[in-house]
């Protein structure tokens, strides 16, 4: 298993740049892929695709509802559209389009939700996306995928495009450490055990996976051996893995760059309450809006520090007794 995670982590690489590169590779591999953006292609880096495949790129202006609907029309014509804008805009401004046409209509459109979580940190709470997972997860037929590092972006994007049906691909804006090695082979719908442990399972997604791996080291030092699970696919959730972790470790911690309401924590709580009730401690934003500031400082201030994970794990373990 050691080969999946790189220790020490690799140098930080821009997630959006990784995404732009992955998009370009995809453009080469698949002629049916078309890319759309809503006047933020220099933010979400879909502009990298535009530079190389201008005829397969459409900038629809500041019109997120039309962005999705135009993609629906293109999908009807046999294209595989990847629509790009800020995650919060897909999950709010264009949500009716997403629900009606992607989920109910099952249009084969992929949504690349840029600047997710707190990663558009300086732009502030209007641009933060802290409820997109809750929102996308509740929609029937939606698939929700959250890459944890630049490697994951490259490995997951082609799978997303091969999948028939709508997918929400949740992307971080910033430079984050490369945590995965070449052995990392994610399969949509299957969680991955990154480290074994018997005392508690820490389930996380996105850029919080790196922080969980760091927390694990602290926990081991204090005598708690956590299992670390990367849940890159929030929906459909790997219920078997979640249940098995509950059975085998007796307590869970969920960690996500998202509100503690409705997202990964909620999905896990739903499953184990049904299959194997054990304590679940949820690490995330405590149902409030954050503020403007540097990214990592925000994560630390709003409940997603390495130490928050450690404390939650300790609480989870302590709760097992009761």
């Amino acid at each position, binding site marked *: 298993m050691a080969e999946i995670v790189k220790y020490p982590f690799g140098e930080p690489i821009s997630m959006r740049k990784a995404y732009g590169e992955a998009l370009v590779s995809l453009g080469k591999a698949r002629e049916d892929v078309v890319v759309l953006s809503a006047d933020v292609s220099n933010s979400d880096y879909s502009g990298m695709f535009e530079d190389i495949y201008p005829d397969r790129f459409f900038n629809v*202006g500041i019109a997120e509802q*039309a962005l999705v609907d135009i993609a*629906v*029309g*293109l999908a009807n*014509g046999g294209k595989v559209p990847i629509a790009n804008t800020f995650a919060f805009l897909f999950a709010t401004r264009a949500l009716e*389009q997403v629900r*009606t*046409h992607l989920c109910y209509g099952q*249009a084969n459109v992929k949504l690349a939700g840029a600047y997710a979580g707190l990663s558009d940190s300086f732009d502030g709470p209007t641009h933060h996306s802290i409820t997109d997972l809750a929102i996308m997860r509740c929609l029937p037929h939606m698939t929700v995928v959250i890459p944890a590092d630049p490697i994951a972006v490259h490995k997951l994007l082609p799978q997303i495009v091969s999948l028939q049906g709508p997918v929400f691909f949740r992307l971080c804006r910033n430079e984050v450490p490369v945590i995965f090695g070449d052995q990392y082979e994610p399969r949509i719908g299957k969680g991955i055990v990154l480290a074994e442990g018997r005392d508690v399972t820490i389930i996380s997604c996105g850029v919080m996976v790196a922080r969980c791996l760091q927390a694990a080291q602290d926990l081991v030092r204090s005598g708690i051996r956590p299992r670390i699970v990367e849940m890159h696919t929030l929906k459909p959730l790997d219920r078997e893995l979640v249940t098995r972790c509950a059975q085998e470790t007796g307590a869970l911690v969920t960690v996500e760059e998202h509100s503690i309401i409705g997202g990964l924590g909620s999905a896990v709580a739903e499953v184990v309450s049904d299959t194997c009730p054990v304590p679940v401690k949820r690490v995330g934003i405590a149902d409030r809006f954050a503020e403007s500031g540097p990214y990592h400082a925000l994560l630390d201030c709003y409940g997603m520090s390495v130490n928050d994970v450690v404390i939650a794990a300790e609480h989870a373990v302590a709760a097992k007794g009761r």
Partner: protein
Amino acid sequence: MITKREVITIPESPVIHPFGTRHTPEMVIDLSKRAINFRIDVLRMVYQNKTGHIGGAFSVAEILTALFFHHLRVDPANPHWPDRDRFVLSKGHACAMLYAALAYRGYFPVEDLMTFRTLNSRLQGHPERQKTPGIEVPSGPLGHGVAIAAGMALAAKMDRSKRRAYVVLGDGEINAGVIWEGALAAAKYKLDNLTAILDYNGVQQTGATIKVMPLEPIAEKWRSFGWHVIEVHGHNMLRVLDALDEANEIHGRPVIIVARTTKGKGVTFMENDHFWHGSPPTSAQFEAALSELQQEVGRWQK
């Protein structure tokens, strides 16, 4: 109680007047009559199941008939033919009329019409892609049609296909902002293979558009958004057919046909009254409406 058989108001299998054929008087008569017969089908569907939208279905009878029995290049035997013309009923609540047209056009058995809105029916309360052959995308929530059809037209351009995209809009519907987003985008991409038809019946759900949300000057709105505008009497079959053809001759920009219509057209007590937007008739109303429509068919028969 109406039996399923009764719905078949055109017993002969309907003639299709293929795209490109001349708009002969016979064809116009045939299509006009058919449109009224479809109104009768819609009336029965809504009456029998006590649910559905009559007013806005009646106002698009001629438009949908012209499209499905002449103008659209589609193949019911092969509904996924890649080069078919695309049709979107953006004002999805008028779907009873679309279902009637699709059934008689051969997409599914005419008998299915009377299952409209019942459990296990292929005919959902609003259009649905998976269950109903001939439906391209769901509709119901208003406003999607322009942008979706723009995407369809864009795909056709990428494929260098001659196929076109058609979308029928309600006038109340164009209150929705996403309509104007789509309008801007269609103009930007010079989608001259996109034809919108605005069912300009002057009534929306809660009243006259002039009271609920005034839209004039309507042609200027679309022109200023970069569209070519054709105005037409939307219940005059020949004019509708001609306008659809004319739209094909406009180059470099999308076209909207502003069709002047009457909500509830054909039944005197339903016309222009928003009450008939979404209410089913009582049995007395049903009988009165039926007889008025049948007389109208009779007038075309002569």
